[in-house]
């Protein structure tokens, strides 16, 4: 599903975001990405969602070589990658329903189909009764669930989450993780960046650790040093 081949990312000014990352994540895996803030977790996710482009190496996602993807093709790539953010990134002048519907509207689906799918997604995150509410009236955990519903409503094969539980208490975090596990069971590949090590270790899934922009640990393989 995701294949990094000697990928590096340098920012203008000389700052290195990622260096020489080699990584393979198969379809239907659920993978946690940990590391200190500034270790490059967000950068790695951004390369997959094409929010940024790598400065070296090849990134393949879902059979697509992102290095060669033209700018005007980016939207079509993003439709196949659900993205979840720590700050939810909801539109505050629209209802919960409209927020979740956005990916479907963007892909040009019909009215009826949108209604059906949005309600299914909201039902899955337990917010069907809030479809007409404004996001600001919801709690942090509920807003995050709206964000999750939006990320999965178009049934993307891959979902990325950047610190999805960053602002939530342990109980709510656990609920969110359970949701992710459920998605994973129906075949969605998940890559979740978080620094909540306690939560990660309780999940019993593959863990990738970034240190200073390099992959320092992969629980699937052995400990290794990346040169």
């Amino acid at each position, binding site marked *: 599903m995701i294949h990094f081949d000697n990928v590096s990312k340098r920012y203008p000014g000389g700052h290195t975001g990622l260096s020489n990352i080699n990584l393979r994540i198969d379809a239907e895996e659920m993978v946690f990405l940990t590391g200190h803030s500034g270790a490059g977790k967000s950068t790695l996710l951004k390369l997959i969602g094409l929010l940024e482009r790598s400065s070296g190496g090849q990134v393949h996602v879902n059979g697509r070589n992102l290095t060669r993807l033209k700018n005007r093709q980016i939207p079509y790539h*993003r439709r196949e990658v659900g993205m979840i953010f720590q700050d939810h990134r909801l539109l505050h*002048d629209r209802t919960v329903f409209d927020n979740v519907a956005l990916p479907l509207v963007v892909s040009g689906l*019909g009215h009826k189909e949108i209604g059906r799918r949005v309600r299914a997604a909201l039902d899955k995150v337990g917010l069907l009764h809030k479809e007409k509410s404004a996001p600001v009236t919801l709690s942090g955990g509920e807003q995050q669930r709206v964000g999750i519903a*939006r990320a999965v409503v178009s049934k993307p094969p891959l979902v990325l989450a950047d610190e999805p539980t960053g602002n939530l208490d342990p109980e709510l975090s656990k609920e969110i993780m359970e949701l992710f596990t459920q998605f994973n069971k129906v075949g969605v590949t998940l890559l979740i960046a978080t620094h909540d090590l306690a939560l990660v270790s309780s999940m019993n899934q593959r863990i990738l650790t970034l240190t200073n922009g390099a992959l320092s640990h992969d629980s699937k393989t052995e400990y290794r040093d990346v040169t």
Partner: protein
Amino acid sequence: MSLKSRLFSMPGIWLQRHAQVALSSLGRLVGNRLSSLMTCAVIGIALALPVGLHVMLSNLNTISGGWESGASISLFLDQSISSEKARSLAETLRQHTRIETVELINRQTALEEFQRLSGYADALQALDSNPLPNLLVIQPKAEYTTAETAEQLAQELRLLPEADIVQLDLQWVRRLQAITVIAQRAVVVLAALLSMAVLLIVGNTIRLEIQNRRTEIEITKLIGATNAFIRRPFLYTGFWYGLFGGLIAWFLVALSLILLSGPIAKLAQLYQSSFDLSSLDPITVLVLLSGSALLGLTGSWLAVGRHLSAIEPS
């Protein structure tokens, strides 16, 4: 799914989306009633100016065109020529190959009419003799009404021993028309300048709107919206600004014409003619509305093209 296959499989949905976006951007404008109205009013005033001038000029053209085709030669006879002689001269001239009609205005009749109409009846009564000469108003045949031929005929008439003054009342019509042509050019230049102003107004308004909705644009891009999708509501907003600006311009011009029609009718009456100020013809209205809508669309296109690509999610 490629764009092509989506277009072919769901043209109905595509149209439905456009209608939806058009209506929702209209709704946004109505939501910000005051500021939208002000923007539209500025556009309306900017467009009303050249359109109003254009209407006035085409009216002027209608009048002066009528004057030209009716160009006649006034042959003022010498004071010593009696009315009988004048009548026989008129009869002779009627046989002239280039002359259509000859109207004799008897000096006596002319004086009476002048007394009646001018309001100087008492003053004229005090005169010993009639100061007015006999006048022959000569209308050349249609094929001789051009400036040159009419001038030739006038020259010929000047040689008549009975002639005192021969006037060809065409020169000033020509001058007026030359001035009108200049004025029309000026209107075109003005229209071009003000259209540019409209482009800038719409462009700036859309630029501000893009800035206000920056987060929304970022999020929508994150979710996989194409640039076309994001551009669309702004283009419709520009379109509506232009269209409503055009409607306001139409309203302003029509209102001005109504306000002017009374005084103009009075002025025409003083010239003993009836002249109806022609209002905006359907073609001008159509050009105005489609032009203003197009200007709005272009203005927003320019702004969107410049500013939208600068917004990328991070």
